[in-house]
């Protein structure tokens, strides 16, 4: 079994980044950036989620393409749900 064992230092570094990003996202929310506020919040959240998936969940080190495919298709299906529902709500004559 070709298992990839990462160093514990790397895990601690990831943890530090995640904690920093949590603080950053809470601070950024208090600054008025207009429409960029929710975008920033979601970008940071996506960044954190990606780091967790890649390192904590070892997706970066797996040779298995199937795992990536599962994640991508689930996200794609979520996008279908959101986009096509929104297609209805964003074109309704009255809100």
């Amino acid at each position, binding site marked *: 079994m070709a298992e990839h064992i990462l160093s514990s230092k790397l895990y601690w570094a990831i943890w530090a980044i995640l904690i920093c990003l949590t603080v950053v996202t809470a601070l950024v929310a208090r600054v008025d950036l207009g429409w960029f506020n929710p975008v920033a919040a979601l970008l940071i959240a996506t960044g954190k989620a990606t780091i967790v998936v890649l390192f904590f969940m070892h997706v970066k080190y797996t040779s298995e393409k199937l795992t990536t495919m599962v994640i991508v298709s*689930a996200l794609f299906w979520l996008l279908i749900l959101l986009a096509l529902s929104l297609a209805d709500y964003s074109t309704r004559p009255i809100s």
Partner: protein
Amino acid sequence: MATAAFSHEREHYLNKEYGIRSWLLTTDHKRIALLYLVSITFFFFIGGFLALLIRLELLTPAGDLVQADTYNKLFTMHGQIMIFFFLIPSIPAVLGNFLVPLMIGAKDLAFPRINLLSWYLYMCGGILMLHTLLTGGVDTGWTFYTPFSTAFSDTKVIEAGVAIFINGFSSILTGLNFVVTIHRMRAPGMTFSRLPLFLWSHYATSIIFLLGTPVLAITLLLVVFERAFNLGIFDPNRGGDPLLFQHLFWFYSHPAVYIMILPSMGVVSEIVPCFSRKRIFGYSFVAMASIGIAVIGFLVWAHHMFVAGMSLYAALIFSFLSYLVAVPSAIKVFNWTATMYKGSISFSTPMLYAFGFIGLFTMGGLTGLFLAALGVDVHVTDTYFVIAHFHYIMVGGAVMGYLGGMHFWWPKISGRMYPEGWGRLAALIVFIGFNLTFFPQFILGYLGMPRRYWQYPPEFQVLNVLSTAGSTILAVGYLLPMVYFLWSMRYGKIADDNPWNATGLEWRTASPPPTYNFEETPLVTWEAYEYDKMTLPAEVTLER
């Protein structure tokens, strides 16, 4: 190879162990398939009984057999039991469970204990549903539309919602098991391009199980929360939007139609080449059409909501996307027909059901195009036209495929042949009864008879009487196979390992198969459906 001569003493999955415990605690996929077979047959007859009551009420224009309240509960429970407890598990949980490992040359599914858990979840949901039925039932329609289901109905909505929620997990786990098994457990040489089309269609079905069912689960849970804890997500009094419920509900429930039809298409793709003695026409197109249906099926859901108040622009998009599903469906129908072209066709029972499937599915599919067209849909929404359309797909399509598959693989499952004459007779009765029941409903709907009413104007009576008469014939057609399958388990002719001279891996092991399916892990060196390289041995008679 084991032959019929000494099969009575050979050990196989049926005679390995005896007793209730050996069945209720089994992890053998073949035994679990039989557990499902017994339980879904039970629910089929309950749902069928409710259908007969509905038809009897509609025999006369007046509401005389049952009152409106009871009628509402009848069609609701008929829909919920038939869809969630019969149609959705039917082929995947019975034939799929039995055949997926056999067809890829594996000893079992990847997670045998989770497979057993699926059955127990199914039973928990089923018993809860039965309890709902016996203690008052639900009257929301199978669709649970809000705000009626959340604020107005005083029936057992919570209980039915929880029953279907639990049953959903059974589906999810079955789908998960199939995908992992097909990816990880294939015998050496069984590449994806050699996979029988039955497995491609089950793979596509599993995609829908995995990505659609959870959305239904959370939607029903939100309805339950709204009733039980007063949350207000769909409540128009608090600014909530009932249409949001419909969006979420149909995001699963439209693809659910493909959960019912795709496995049937898989069955037909096995039967047609075998009884035409020809290679399937356009293997990769049929395989990809399955995946195509599963994906496009997720893009069309709002065509159930055209008149519900959704945006006209979005309705146009959904209407267009709905037409797209016709493309892969038509590809399949054309390929089956092309497979039969110049084949040496034998009219055995499974093939009769396959014929029935192709014809009825084509009718159901084409009338679906009428409904996808915005203008026509406005005219026939919520009429019997819709009822006839989806029964042509679900009963004419899915159930025909299920019965065809049951006959095709019965020798493998039980080790016995069913009586061929009775089989053909039953197939004929089912076909006649089905058309007599549902064809008049197309006309009724087009004339404007609405669905879900317990009484109707007298001018609709003739067609309704025809429909009710058809349903009794259909009932006979469904009872017959149950009787002769049971009979054949004791008195049927002992089946050969490969009575149809078919090419699949499942026919290269004994009938019934041993517990671990194959004496040795098979090595696959051939493509699927090499019927052109297979000659019919003289002793194989297909009882023309």
